[in-house]
């Protein structure tokens, strides 16, 4: 296991309704690094995370987690979906949501054990929300909601974390809390791949960076890869042809 990369993606092509949104993506993630996933809107950043976890049909390619197919390795992955992806008015408490992080460790039938509940409490404490365990989730601020999602991922006890815009729409205090948490994860030897939007903070928060725009532009240590030239390639207009090709392909093949 030690020799295999945490995540290896080989020649991955993904399409939504025949419209390709990722082309021939190919990479291996380094173990124990904080990796920022950066690219313009519609570049396929969330799609890449979802494709890694097998939510989407692949037109080509495969994903390996520590050298084996994802389906056999789920227990190593912790996932933080976008905050807007759920209804925060749903009738559950903060602790209920964090407990969900333990579901992957439970048998098909049966409830949480005492150790699971302790783990969930500890995760909640780690993000500084222990006092709010009994609150209904709609009564939290946006930043607190984001931290609930992070606590749930921590409760999963994974070694690889996939995070979809953990910094989106959070207050300064939550941002600092998340940064500290990322550092802690790195100190514990975990690998983190996080979609990130704020180009100003990439160098500060991430050791590695993955530049993505429908295809993999660059992957490497932030100091080497995060250059103006590479950003221009990632965000520039050079991909107009690829986008147009995808569009015309859709028109012709969609029912």
């Amino acid at each position, binding site marked *: 296991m030690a020799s295999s990369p945490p995540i290896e993606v080989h020649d991955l092509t993904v399409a939504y309704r025949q419209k390709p949104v990722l082309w021939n993506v190919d990479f291996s993630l380094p173990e124990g690094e904080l990796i920022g996933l950066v690219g313009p809107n519609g570049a396929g950043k969330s799609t890449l995370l979802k494709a890694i976890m097998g939510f989407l049909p692949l037109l080509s390619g495969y994903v390996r987690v520590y050298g084996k197919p994802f389906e056999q390795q*789920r227990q190593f992955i912790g996932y933080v979906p976008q905050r807007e992806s*759920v*209804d925060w008015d*749903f009738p*559950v408490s903060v602790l209920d*949501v964090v407990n*969900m992080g333990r579901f992957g460790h439970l048998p098909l039938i049966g409830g949480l054990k005492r150790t699971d509940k302790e783990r969930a409490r500890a995760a909640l404490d780690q993000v500084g929300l222990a006092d709010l365990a009994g609150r209904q989730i709609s009564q939290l601020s946006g930043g607190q909601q984001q931290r609930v999602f992070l606590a*749930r991922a921590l409760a999963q006890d994974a070694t690889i974390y996939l995070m979809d815009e953990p910094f989106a729409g959070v207050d300064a205090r939550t941002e600092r809390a998340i940064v500290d948490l990322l550092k802690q994860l790195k100190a514990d030897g975990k690998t983190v791949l996080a979609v990130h939007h704020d180009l100003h903070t990439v160098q500060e928060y991430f050791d590695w960076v993955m530049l993505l725009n429908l295809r993999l532009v660059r992957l490497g240590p932030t100091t080497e890869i995060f250059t103006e030239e590479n950003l221009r390639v990632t965000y520039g207009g050079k991909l107009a042809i690829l986008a147009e090709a995808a569009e015309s392909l859709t028109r012709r093949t969609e029912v």
Partner: protein
Amino acid sequence: MVEWWDLTYRFFSFSDAAVRLVVAGTMLLGAAAGGLGTFVYLQKRSLVGDALAHAALPGVGLAFLILGEKQFLPLVVGAAVTAWLGGLAVDAVTRYTRLKLDAALGMVLSVFFGFGILILTHIQKGGYADQSGLAHFIFGKAAAMSPGDVTAIGVITLLLAVTLMVGFRHFKLVVFDPGFAASLGLPIRIWQFALTTLVVMAVTIGLQAVGVVLIAALLITPAAAARQWTDRLAPMIGLATAFGSLSGLLGAYISFLAPALPTGPWVVVVVSSIFAVSLLLAPNRGIVWRLLEFWGHRRKVSRDHILKALYRHGMDRGNWTDYYPRRAIAELWSFRPGELRSALGQLVANGSLERSGDMFRLTSAGIASGERITRLHRLWEVYLSRYLDLPSDHLHRDAEAMEHVISPELEAQLTDLLEHPTHDPHAQPIPYERAKGEAKDQAS
């Protein structure tokens, strides 16, 4: 009156076998639909339940045509099959065309329902011996239930309850956060499929008693009412189940008192009444509750204005020893009729004001309160001008609203953030707790 009492006694003694049957049937149905409906409601798929119910009608007719006789179970199976096809059609339309969910639901509902009416009309005119009563599936007729029907409803309800209990954790996760559920390896399509199947079953057992047109109300309304009362999923399911079965019981009772009116519509009327009451009265979410909160806040605003104005008068004069006549206080702020009297009364009662005839002055507690409101007002003005860069003539109105709602925690944060400013943007001093001691000296 005597007749009403007699009927009520006869109904609730459950000595009448026909009454027992109807009550058991409608209560079981209300419980099953209410409990399951919670998930439909939370998935925001309320109209899907309605479309499934309407899509069940052709199945009833087709099953009758195939069998040539009216038996509960085969008809229910037929209903379930076409309801299912309706559900698949909705999925297919939204998945493979550009049509949105509302259009797909509208199409499926009307096409299947129309087809069902067509088949039923054909059966009615076709001279089939056993066909009377099939039309009840449109609006429902609880009295038409046989002991076998009620047994079947009971078995299916039990099945639904057991499935929900065993799979509770999974259903909760799949409905709340399907993305995360998928990352854990839960086959979400299968769980959603299971949920839809359960809904189809609940709908079809209700067809005979309530009918395809009204069954959706039994699915959604108890859940919507229950949501008003609780913030947790398990109690919500319990409440929705209770509301559903209570509606079944009361609907059957009202229909027993006035047999001209069928049970199904009465059940729906009762469940809607429960919803209306919940909408008005439930704590926190209820309309009455929110109105009370609103009025409470308005009264607090009046009280705060009196305190603040008297505090500032005292500041200008250097002491708070003078009494002010009611008339002078009335001019401080545009009070609504009666508002001043009740605000003064409350302030005297909570120890902020002392009264002498029709004259009032601040107590030391009142001085502290007035000082705090002034402080919050000026702190907020500092915050706005510093962080939002608003010009000084834009600050007052906003601070006027905020001074009544800032909590002590927020106040502490604000003071720290602004690093204990001494003056507001209009160069007025910001009073901190120091006035308390002086106030006490002067009051004594």
